[in-house]
């Protein structure tokens, strides 16, 4: 099986998938109750995206 060139993701899509996977893993590992897990996952995902986009914009003036 070769999935080689199969995945063509934009930077934003890659960041979304990465943040989602890590948030889910962290949420399940660090919290026990389902509602706490959901809260943690949503909050963690939001912060991942906010900080990612924020750092992107912070680098924009130096990108050229």
């Amino acid at each position: 099986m070769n999935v080689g060139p199969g995945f063509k993701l934009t930077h934003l899509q890659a960041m979304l998938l990465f943040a989602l996977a890590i948030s889910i893993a962290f949420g399940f590992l660090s919290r026990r109750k389902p509602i706490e897990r959901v809260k943690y996952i949503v909050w963690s995902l939001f912060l991942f995206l906010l900080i990612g986009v924020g750092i992107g914009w912070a680098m924009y003036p130096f990108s050229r």
Partner: protein
Amino acid sequence: MAGETSAPAVPQQDSRRDRIAFAIGVAGWLVPGLGHALMKMWGRAVACFLTVGVLVILGAGMRGNVFNSSGNDAFDSLGYLADLGTGTFYVLARALERDGSDVSRAEGDYGTRFLATAGVLNLLAALHAYEAARGRKA
């Protein structure tokens, strides 16, 4: 006398529990989620298996760099250690990437990060399973 005979039982139990905890940690490293599954923590087991699996498949699919033992510098060696953290999924990543890596494109570079993150995440999960088996946290 009864106290003298029962006293060594506690360290022996601790030693046995440590050995079991170590085995659970190693199992969790070899197969993502297996350590938690052995302790019947099904939600965590499935979450670890799926997140590590998805990251490995995406990373290999984006033709990220799967490092090997013959690295040229410290970064290659660290990358190899991180990739090894996925346990048996390291073999899966190599099998999926028959054409080798392509980090000349942005996707390949992202894929390298996905693979390394999958390994580190799995090591964290295995350590969590080990600690839970020792009764330190759950």
